[in-house]
């Protein structure tokens, strides 16, 4: 979407900033518009500005289809489903998924705030193919593991994701690896036990290979 420019890409401190851009009322208002709610014309300009600020806070760290996230461990949002995004936002708010920045950002948000944010994530265009070198041997080993462990059963054969299950194809490699390690260690849990079930017998080298393949799936 858009970046505020003046804040640059160092958005990691937003959550702690006093009087930061994400006032709860402003966000709810902005996101209601983003979600298609009718807004009187007189409020449109202010709403558009609030919307830009709210979305900019996400984009600052996560990037967009045309810009990479601020750190390798930060996931790209483009291509994720609305329902997956909503689950994660709910988990951040409840503390089931732990991330200091995200939890602080969503702590005071209402259910409707989270729904509107998720709808925005789900509306993003598909991510552009990523560059970077591909380790063919690692890629092929990862592909075999992904196939034999049935990742495509839930995440779709092309790893594009569906419903509450995230797209894996083209995601940030370091984020994927961190997520796999978190699921394996029980630091991160999903709706059901599928991830821990699949990953419990696997080695860390397996996770490295799978993350490399997923990040470069289709290349």
């Amino acid at each position, binding site marked *: 979407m858009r970046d505020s420019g003046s804040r640059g890409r160092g958005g990691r401190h937003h959550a702690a900033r006093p009087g930061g851009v994400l006032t709860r009322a402003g966000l709810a208002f902005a996101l209601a518009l983003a979600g298609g709610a009718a807004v009187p014309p007189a409020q449109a300009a202010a709403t558009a500005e609030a919307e830009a600020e709210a979305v900019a806070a996400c984009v600052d760290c996560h990037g967009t289809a045309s810009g990479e996230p601020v750190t390798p461990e930060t996931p790209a949002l483009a291509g994720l489903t609305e329902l997956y995004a909503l689950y994660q936002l709910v988990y951040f708010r409840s503390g089931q998924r732990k991330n200091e920045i995200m939890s602080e950002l969503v702590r005071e948000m209402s259910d409707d705030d989270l729904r509107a944010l998720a709808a925005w994530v789900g509306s993003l265009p598909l991510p552009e193919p990523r560059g970077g070198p591909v380790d063919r041997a690692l890629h092929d080993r990862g592909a075999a593991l992904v196939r034999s462990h*049935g990742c495509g059963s*839930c995440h779709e054969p092309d790893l594009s994701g569906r419903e*509450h299950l995230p797209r894996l194809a083209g995601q940030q490699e370091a984020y994927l690896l961190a997520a796999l390690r978190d699921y394996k260690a029980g630091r991160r849990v*999903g709706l059901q036990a599928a991830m821990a*079930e699949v990953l419990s017998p696997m080695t860390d080298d397996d996770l490295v290979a799978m993350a490399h393949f997923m990040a470069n799936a289709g290349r």
Partner: protein
Amino acid sequence: MTAFTLSNGVKLALATALLAVASVPAAAQDKKEEEVPFWAVGRPTTGPGAALAPVAAPPLPTAADKLPRLNVPAGFKVEVFASGIPDARGLREGDKGTIFISTLFGGGGKIYALVDGKTKEIAKDLFLPNGVEFKDGALYVATPKEIIRYDDIEANLDNPPAPVTVFDDLPGVVPHGWKFIKFGPDGKLYVPVGTPCNICEEQADYAKIFRINADGTGKEDVALGVRNTVGFDFDPKTGDLWFTDNQRDWLSEDMPLDELNHVTQPGKQHFGYPYCHSGIMTDPQYGWGHSCDDYSSPAATLGPHAAPLGMRFYTGSAFPEAYQGAIFIARHGPWNSHTKYADVSVAFLDKNGSVRAVEPFLTGFVIDNGYVGRPNDVLVLKDGSMLVSDDFNGAIYRISYEG
């Protein structure tokens, strides 16, 4: 591992169960052996069937003013009884009118009590505590691993007592392991153990309903060949057990048909699983050498992959006479079928106790072939009105008759 924090003991039990599940290979893989989730075993590998998978509910309960508009027959009224209860499933009424509500995957292992329109959380972090029951002042909760009891619960909703273990000789396996429990007119607690797979043969201690004394002793089988029942009740006239049973997945778009079954000879009837489905068709893998004539046929069929869950005989007098003694059945709706449908249906019995007809009663849960709600359990209240839980929206509806 599930959607909530678990105690160490539960984690151990769950991990053990998961390892058993993770080793299930997909049948007929021509490549290297591929693990798939248990629900996907047998799924078509090509075509539209390959895209079918369980339907996820939203992670947030729906606000009361955004709930679906539901329909009931003329003369009945449906209203929102409670909302904002994530994953609301099993329903029971206490002696003093408290409504107890269970949850499953999306509910944080919680049990709720609803009193005077207010929802109280009375337990959390339980292991898939779908089964609830109330008797003699105590709330019973069944997980896949054990049955526990909270004594004198209605006097202690703000500070529930530590639960007492009633029975813990259960497999603790997740697939089809979550429970529906109910006391029968014989004072015994009826407990199902679903099959730990889509379809498989070799588990002696699965795929059945058994009963125990209220203190957990005296376990005996009641019904065999039961794939996965998540709803049953006792005919108020005869005392007979009736149960809904979820049949196998993937066989085809329109088969098998889920079942409503009638137990007439406790402990002696086999209801067909895994050999015969819906009373009319042998299983393409396990049915060879078997005949449906050798198994108890369903009293009624309830539609392909319909997922019938909670069911109750209507024991009140507020509904018209035609509904008195009829069976209300929550059809949660299929996931491994392209045609989505869900409702509360009503099965009318004739004078001989046979099912005369099954008709939709509460509808409006599907729009454009997608779920906007999913009924889960039904409960006849002492005043003769009926509650219906909707886990998809985290809501409970109340149906009354106005004439």
